[in-house]
């Protein structure tokens, strides 16, 4: 005959095993990333800086230099991406001096050689861009001049949209060619 206290102890043991099992099955699965012991992506070297952005004002048909605060990495490619984001943020606010489509952003930035910059934009940048000779020209000049002012050593800039070449930005301004920053600098003076 099993003593009564043994029966109670075994019963409690079985109950606790059952409860632990239930709680384990209900626990959310941990993502592999959170269990990784290896180092995460290295922190980007850089600092908060004042950047010069050339802002387009549609109503005045003009471009004006403004100062903005941005985290600017040391790497030239990352720096170029942040410079473009700084000017885009001016256009994506409301009210905007030069409205662009929601979701307009930089996807990627890379170099051909040491002086040619290729800026790959999101599809929303072109698809949501207002159509018109003036507005498209203001966008391109504003972006290229802002890049030129904040990233040293760019002599040519080319824009892609979602990794592909496009004939025009929104039906007018050329997106197929490589823009020379020096020539765009002269063109910008017409609007300043």
């Amino acid at each position, binding site marked *: 005959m099993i003593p009564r206290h043994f029966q109670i102890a075994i019963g409690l043991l079985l109950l606790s095993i059952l409860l632990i099992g239930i709680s384990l099955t209900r626990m959310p699965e941990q993502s592999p990333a959170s269990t990784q012991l290896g180092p995460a992506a290295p922190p980007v070297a850089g600092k908060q800086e004042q950047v010069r952005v050339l802002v387009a004002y549609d109503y005045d*048909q003009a471009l004006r230099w403004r100062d903005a605060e941005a985290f600017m990495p040391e790497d030239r490619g990352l720096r170029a991406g942040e410079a473009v984001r700084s000017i885009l943020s001016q256009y994506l606010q409301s009210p905007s001096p030069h409205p662009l489509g929601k979701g307009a952003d930089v996807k990627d930035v890379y170099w051909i050689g040491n002086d040619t910059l290729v800026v790959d934009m999101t599809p929303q940048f072109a698809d949501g861009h*207002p159509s018109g*000779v*003036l507005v498209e020209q203001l966008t391109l000049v504003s972006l290229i001049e802002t890049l030129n002012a904040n990233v040293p050593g760019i002599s040519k800039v080319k824009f892609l949209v979602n990794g*592909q070449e496009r*004939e025009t930005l929104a039906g*007018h301004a050329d997106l197929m060619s490589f*823009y020379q920053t020096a020539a765009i600098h002269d063109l910008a003076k017409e609007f300043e």
Partner: protein
Amino acid sequence: MHWNKRAEILPAALLLCLGVVLPWSKYSSAGAIAAAASSAAHGGPRHARFSRAGVEEQPRSSPSPTPPLLSAEAPKRALPEFFVMIDPGHGGNDKGALLAGAIAEKDVTLAWARDLRRQLEERGVPARLLRDSDQTLSLDRRAEITNEARPSVYVALHAAPPAGGVRVYAAALPFATETTKGRLVSWENAQTVSLERSRSVARAVANEIRRQDRRVSWFAAPLRPLNNLVIPAIAVEFASVSRQSENQKMETALASAIAAGIAQVRGQLGARP
């Protein structure tokens, strides 16, 4: 018997060699196209664009454009007849901007272009429309048609919602290209040969618009297909308003100013009067 067999084998071997060599020569030209693509990636000349569409497999409405000839080096002929090529912007699948809430830019530009043709003809200036219906034409195709037709002036018409007033454009050529040799000129910078005359036309048209007490500015713009044309070329864009009746009045007045401006500089454009 031994020699007879050889005689049968030799033609067969020759045919076999041809079969190997011909496709190989095809691959060689594909290699040249790839080299042109690489040149384009470094801001190479326009003939490189033959490869661009191929690389991306983008649909094209027309074959690749032929690099235009420099007008100064073109074979000497008698002066061509003076006529104006009017290009109503957009068309077909390309609606352009949406004006006054619901009107497509392509319809506004077509009506405006017909008005301009009428007003030019009233002044004794022959004119043709690049499209006279709701037709899809790529920008490269527009440039090809115009360069082949050799008009004395090309006028592109556009309408857009923002800001106010009228903008007259001549081409800006801020594009990086390699220097081309001989009679070929790069596609991106084809307008170089006529840029000064284009600016004269733009100034004359802007002055005529100003005479109507309208706000007008003239700019240089990297606008296609202006940069791809070898003849004097301008574009005119007006900021549409919300009332359709106002827009129609504006189109008619602007057509009159453009026609007057072109008639004024007709003598400077090197065509038969």
